[in-house]
């Protein structure tokens, strides 16, 4: 076996690409959970975003319009969840599962006939001088714009949650909805908006899969990415900057196993391709076993139904 064919530049570059869809979906879910809502429908929202983005991009010929379509698709499908859980006060776990099952079905249905097409792509960013630097240039500074938009979004969310009044209100709603309600904040509508934001991010993450990472449309192509995004929020202990770390870790595992497969390592493809899922489980165990750290940052009202009794 020849490991020298693995170039660190290419590995790092593909790691960033592999991490981006999960990071996008996870940062949306982080905001949703910070507002006190557990939306298990990330997988469903992602796949709807993937198909909406793909179809819009193919029909308009522009990947950017594709992103727009994906964002709208994600918002639209997450509004079902928002309506069910916030207005009709339905169980969040069950509604999230329903969203995933529905999303998988509906995406396969509308994507019927779009398989085997190559979508329009994004131009890669080229920053004069910087992108020409050795190593750093090709590995980190010459990707498509979405890779950087993803990181920027994480920073913006961090800023919003920690440095703005509205962010503080959102966290208060997630921490104790009764107290926030007593202070006069509109718990339902704050959560409703957070859920739609989560839907938009998941939709963008899905579109990144179908437009850049794969790039193709196939049924069920998210293959658990939405669930891994949920796990990364737990891994990050609801802290945006740790979410980048988490996404890159999983991106790294994915890329390593793909490269090892390509090298023909003796372990067997089936076992290598389990790696991302197994690593997710191991990381979840490590984080959750440290009880203090894992629960200290969890929003106090996470998953609880808010009903203003008065």
């Amino acid at each position, binding site marked *: 076996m020849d490991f020298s064919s693995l170039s660190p530049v290419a590995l790092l570059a593909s790691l960033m690409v592999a991490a981006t869809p999960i990071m996008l979906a996870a940062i949306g879910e982080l905001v949703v959970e910070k507002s006190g809502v557990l939306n*298990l429908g990330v997988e469903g929202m992602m796949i709807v975003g993937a198909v909406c983005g793909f179809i819009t991009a193919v029909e308009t010929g522009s990947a950017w319009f594709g992103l727009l379509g994906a964002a709208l698709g994600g918002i639209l499908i997450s509004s*079902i969840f928002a309506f*069910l859980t916030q*207005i*009709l*006060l*339905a*169980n969040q*776990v*069950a*509604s999230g*599962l*329903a*969203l995933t*099952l*529905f*999303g*998988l*079905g*509906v*995406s*396969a*249905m509308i994507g*019927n006939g779009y398989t085997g097409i190559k979508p329009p792509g994004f131009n890669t960013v080229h920053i004069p001088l910087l992108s020409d630097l050795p190593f750093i240039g090709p590995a980190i500074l010459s990707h498509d714009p979405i890779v950087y938009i993803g990181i920027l979004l994480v920073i913006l969310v961090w800023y919003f949650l920690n440095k703005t009044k509205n962010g503080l209100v959102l966290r208060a709603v997630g921490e104790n909805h009764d107290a926030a309600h007593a202070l006069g904040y*509109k718990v*339902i509508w704050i959560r409703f908006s957070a859920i739609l934001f989560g839907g938009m991010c998941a939709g963008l993450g899905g579109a990144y899969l179908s437009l850049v990472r794969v790039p193709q449309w196939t*049924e069920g192509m998210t*293959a*658990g990415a939405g*669930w891994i995004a*949920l*796990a990364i929020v*737990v891994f990050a202990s609801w802290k945006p900057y740790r979410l980048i770390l988490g996404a890159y870790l999983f991106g790294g595992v994915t890329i390593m196993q793909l490269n090892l497969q390509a090298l023909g390592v003796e372990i*067997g493809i*089936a*076992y290598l*391709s*389990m790696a991302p*899922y*197994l690593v*997710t*489980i191991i990381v*979840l*165990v490590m984080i*959750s*076993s440290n*009880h203090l750290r*894992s629960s200290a940052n969890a929003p106090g009202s996470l998953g609880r139904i808010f*009903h*203003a*009794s008065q």
Partner: protein
Amino acid sequence: MLTGNGMIRLEKRPQPSKKWTSITPFLAVLATMFVGGIMFWALGQDPIEAIRIIFWDPLFNPQFASYARPQILVKAGPLVLIALGLSLGFRANIWNIGAEGQYIIGAICGAGVGLAFYPSEGWFIFPLMVIAGALGGFLWAMIPAILKIKFNTNEILVSLMLVYVAEKILVSVSLGLMRNPEGGGFPGSRNLQYYKAASNPELISGTGMHWGVLVAIALTCLTYIMLTKHILGFQIKISGQSNKAARFSGTNPSIITAICLGVSGALAGLAGLFEVSGPSGQISIDFNVGYGFTAIIVAFLGRLNPFGILLAGLLMALTYIGGELAQFMLGLPAAAIQAFQGMLLFFLLAGDILTNYRPKFTYKKRL
């Protein structure tokens, strides 16, 4: 609606309404038919014809009924078995959503035992396979159970991740370990339908009834008795309502977690075993068809009640057959029925507002 000068206010019921608990599933089915009809219309189909093909023709169309009717039991069997197990956990707030993985592992373990005895005959082979299938599903579900008990790890994510792992194992054994040596190199194991000692045949010809269906019916009754008459049923229910109350009543949450996950895993494993030795016949790359996920809908649609689950399983099986028929007759995409089933769950959850809250119509004068 909830605040301000709204005309409708919601008042939380002290107890979920029994009346609405049983009415809402029917309302949800009607609403799904209606909106599903609109969806089919948007796909360019005659909505009434599409609904008729899905819900009526499999049962009563003289041309298809003879094929379709037995298929209903074939599909309802695994759905009911899996949903019965899931419903225990859902009552106790323990969310096993990895039944699909337990189903796969149960099938692999059960079929593995059968294939190991090939070609010898013996009455004991099939019972051994049943035990192996249940054990396989049980052990696969014990992974999230033990991680939850020992490390407080989220069972939803772990059980779901293990579905993907199980699918990879399935691919691996269909291509390698369990591949039929006389199969001309094609993936997939020997067909157990042709290996008498290991097969789960149709018991009464033309009904679709096989051992799995009988076990599903028996377990429906057993689960009902357990939930209503046994202390365990009480402990499961109380765990879901209040952790504190559960502890005061002497319920050990770890044991409840292990039982709920373990039993649902074992039942999903059984479902997998009956499927692989019966209707499907062999371990192959595409052996699993999503029963483990659809069973989640079945459990909710049946209101976590064993007999409700039996009815819901039959109805969901009908939509599967009807969906296949619609695919064949109208060229509807296969995924349409999955969207249809997801929609059903949405309407059911939406309807629950009437179960848990009482709408109050009030007029408030603006000052």
